[in-house]
Each structure stands twice: as structure tokens, then as C-alpha cells.
């Protein structure tokens, strides 16, 4: 029965979004009724430019996320498995992590203009830390007994990583991937919106500046739907990769 109530909630939202502009509480020009937005959405999905913008957005999202996850996992395991490296890099990581990635927008605009590279730098910088921090927590969570047993049996460095560190770290990595996936989407859309690299964000900006407000809302709805799909996929991935571990999973407290 849960999902029936949930659908009721969504229908309720649609009704509110339809009724508020029609009642005249806000201007229907600035806030078109839900039905108008849906009609505009139906028209928009028939245009080729919509799909190419969607493709561009997904491309920089996926590429940026992939780079950030690989780099975060490799660097995280490398740093995490050495006490010396962990101590020497801690202050630097603490220092670089809170730097907001949007501070780099002017720099990448000058260097790379409206190309994919601009997007990637912002996306990778923002999502890399999410992965790295989780992996660092994961590696530290390895059972010391298991680590010493592996050493006693003279497992090679690679075998230690494969059979001892990796299984413990995986759940943390997955949490990192889930957080990073959402951050990467936000940064992709932001870069398109502010810098003007091709994609959904740019389409939204064009719709706003040309006064096509219902199209603007179409893109807001579309980015929301993509966001939901990203969250659902990230959770499905977590379940698929480690079916053995769904109950123990918690987000690390940094």
C-alpha cells in the first residue's frame, strides 16, 4: 500500500501546481500550470536539439563521475594503506576539500571556454573528494586481525589489496559513488548554465533569456527526473554489487 500513498502524494503535487497558477495567486506567465508544462514537454521531446542536449549532459556527467571514482578509489587505497602517507596528506586533504569547485569557474572559462573540458574539471574536482573521503574511511575500517593474518601468510601487496582491503572498502566506495553521482549532476548542469557549455543547462538558460518560460520549466522538470533516475540507479548499483552487505551499510561520519 506504500506506493499507492506515494502516487497520491505525487498527484497532489501536480494538482497544486495546476491550481495555484490558475487561481491567479501567481502570474500564469511566470509560473505556467502543470498541464501547460506537460504539453510543452511533449513538444520538446520531439525536437532533436533536446536529445542532443540531454546526450551532452549525460556524457559529461558519466565521464566526470567515472574519472572521479577511479581516481578516488586508486588514490584512496594508496593513501589509506600507508600510515605515513595518511598522516602527511591529511592536512592537505582537509584543506583542499572544502574549496568550492565553483570557484574554479572563471579559470576554466578562460582556459577551455565552452568545451567538455571545462565541465569535466568542475565535475571531477567536486565529486573526487566525496569518493576519496569514503575510501579513506573504508581502508581504515579493515579489521587489524585480518590484516595481520594476511601478512603472516605472506600475501603479496596486490593480494592484500584484493582479498583484505577491497572487500571492506567496497561498501564505503559505493556510498561515495552514490554521493558523487548526485554532486556530479549538479556540477554538470551548473557548468552548462553558468559557462554555457552545450547541454540541458544551456537550453534552460536560453529558454529563460528568450522569455520562453514554459520551456524553462520543462528543463527544470527534466533535470529533476534525471536526478531521480541517478539516485535510483546508484542505489540499485549498490544492491547489485554487494548483495551480501545491505544491512551493515552506514555513511561514514567525517
Amino acid at each position, binding site marked *: 500500500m506504500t506506493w499507492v500513498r*506515494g*502516487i497520491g502524494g505525487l498527484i497532489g503535487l501536480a494538482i497544486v501546481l495546476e491550481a495555484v497558477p490558475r487561481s491567479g495567486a501567481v502570474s500564469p506567465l511566470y509560473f505556467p500550470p502543470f498541464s501547460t508544462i506537460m504539453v510543452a514537454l511533449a513538444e520538446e521531446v520531439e525536437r532533436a536539439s533536446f536529445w542532443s542536449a540531454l546526450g551532452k549532459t549525460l556524457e559529461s556527467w558519466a565521464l566526470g563521475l567515472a574519472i572521479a571514482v577511479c581516481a578516488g578509489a586508486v588514490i584512496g587505497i594508496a593513501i589509506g594503506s600507508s600510515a605515513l602517507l595518511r598522516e602527511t596528506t591529511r592536512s592537505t586533504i582537509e584543506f583542499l576539500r572544502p574549496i568550492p569547485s565553483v*570557484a574554479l569557474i572563471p579559470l576554466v572559462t*578562460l582556459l577551455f571556454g565552452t568545451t567538455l573540458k571545462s565541465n569535466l574539471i568542475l565535475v571531477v574536482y567536486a565529486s573526487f573528494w566525496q569518493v576519496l573521503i569514503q575510501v579513506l574511511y573504508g581502508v581504515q575500517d579493515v579489521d587489524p586481525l585480518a590484516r595481520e593474518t594476511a601478512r603472516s601468510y605472506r600475501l603479496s601487496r596486490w593480494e592484500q589489496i584484493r582479498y583484505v582491503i577491497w572487500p571492506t572498502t567496497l561498501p564505503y566506495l559505493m556510498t561515495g559513488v552514490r554521493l558523487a553521482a548526485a554532486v556530479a549532476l549538479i556540477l554538470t*548542469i551548473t557548468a552548462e548554465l553558468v559557462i554555457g557549455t552545450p547541454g540541458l543547462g544551456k537550453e*534552460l538558460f536560453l529558454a529563460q533569456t528568450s522569455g520562453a518560460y514554459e520551456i524553462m520549466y520543462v528543463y527544470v522538470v527534466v533535470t*529533476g527526473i534525471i536526478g531521480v533516475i541517478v539516485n535510483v540507479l546508484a542505489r540499485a548499483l549498490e544492491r547489485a554489487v554487494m548483495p551480501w552487505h545491505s544491512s551493515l551499510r552506514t555513511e561514514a561520519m567525517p
Partner: protein
Amino acid sequence: MSSDRAIQIVRQMALAMGLPALLFVAWWISSSGSESIFFPPLSNILRTFADVWFSPRIMHDVVPSLVRLFIGYLSAVALGLALGIAIGASRRMRQVIEPVLEFLRAIPPPVLVPIFMLFVGIGDMMKMLVIISGCVWPVLLNTVAGVRALDSVLEEVIRCYRIGMVARLWYFVLPGASPQIFAGMRQALSIGIILMVISEMFAASNGLGFSLVQFQRSFAIPEMWTGIILLGLIGILLAFIFRFVENWMLAWYFGLRRSQRESS
């Protein structure tokens, strides 16, 4: 004994400062003879830093940005807490509203900038609304999760003793959910800084993001670098303040976890 301790402290200082110092020196040397207009020498950037920011600009650009962030962030926390406690307390409410929240939260907050611009123009109100609309979700969702995970035995005890609403909230719900709430507030803070900058990059007459874009468009490259550095410093400073407040308010929780870990 005391000399051992001194060595210990020196060692920790060296470990903490070593890499940052190395990176700073590397940047300084590699950029010292730089001819590239995009990467001016670090000495040049640092000299410009004082000229640019220790001036009326700090009142004109930095303070308004921070005030908007502060008000927006606190409003978002208050709103997220109130809604989160209400939603977390009722199972039926949660089932109805969860898919709606899932959707609203998934909308990347920067896309709301153009919408708010339509309704309230480009003033302070727009920027604070954008910050609120982005920061509220992590607080809200974590509060819901925290309220749901409250100890059910304690909850029944409170009901048996007929403890009033206010006392229940103040002595049971808020403290019990606070570790989760703080986790959400930490996420919200970094989102808030991002939105502060973005909302000003779009349309503004003052603020950090506004000056950053101005520098970039007028090719004032060293000034642009100082803006990037200042934003980084602000991010670090706010994260530090947050950690301080968290350690102070959650001291009981961190202590509890430490003792649990030691006993296990």
C-alpha cells in the same frame, strides 16, 4: 618525558605542515618566471591579494555574500528541522510525501536561479531563496532519518510518563537525532557556499561571485586568482567553524562512540 612529548608535537607539526609547505614552494617556484597570462607568478597574486581585498571591497562584496549565506543557511536549517520532525514522526505522512521529496530534492538547485529571478528579481531575496532551496534537503532528509531511528523504548517511556510535547522535543527528539542532523547540516553548508557563488555569478551588483566574474571578463587575471583563493579560504574557515560547533554540541556523542569502540 616532556622532551618526548615535545618531539611528538614537533613530529606532528612536521607531518601536518610538510606537504602544504612543499606544494606552496612548488607553486611559487614553478610560477616565478611565468610568462603565461593565465598563470601569473604566485608572488604577484599574493601582492594583488592585499590590494584587492583589504579595501572597501571587503564591505562591498565579501560581507554581503556572507550575510546572505548566513541568513539563507540558518533559515534552511530551521525549515528542514521543522519539516523533518513533522514528517519523521508520522508514518502515513512519510509515505505520502516521500516520492514528492525524492523528486524535489533531485532537482539541481542552480536551475532554480532563473525561476527565482522571475519572481523576486535579482536582489538579496533571490540569492537567499536559492540558498534555502538547496540547503534545506540534506537537513530535512537527515532529520527524517534521525527521528525515525530514535530509541523506541525511550519513546514509550516518554509516553507512559505523559511528558509534554515541548519537553519531548527538547530532551528526546532533538538530542537523539542530532548526530544525523549535524551530518545533514555539514552537507548543506558546502552546498550553501556553492549556491552563494552561483547566484551571484548569474545576476548581481555585488558579492564574491559577482566580482569573480567581473575579474574574469575584464581579464584581470591576478585579481581573479585572488578571488579563487579567497573563496577557498572562506570554504576552509566555514568548515573549521562548523567542526568546532559540532564538536562542542555533539561532545557527548563522540565520547560515547569512543568508549564503545574501546570496549568492543
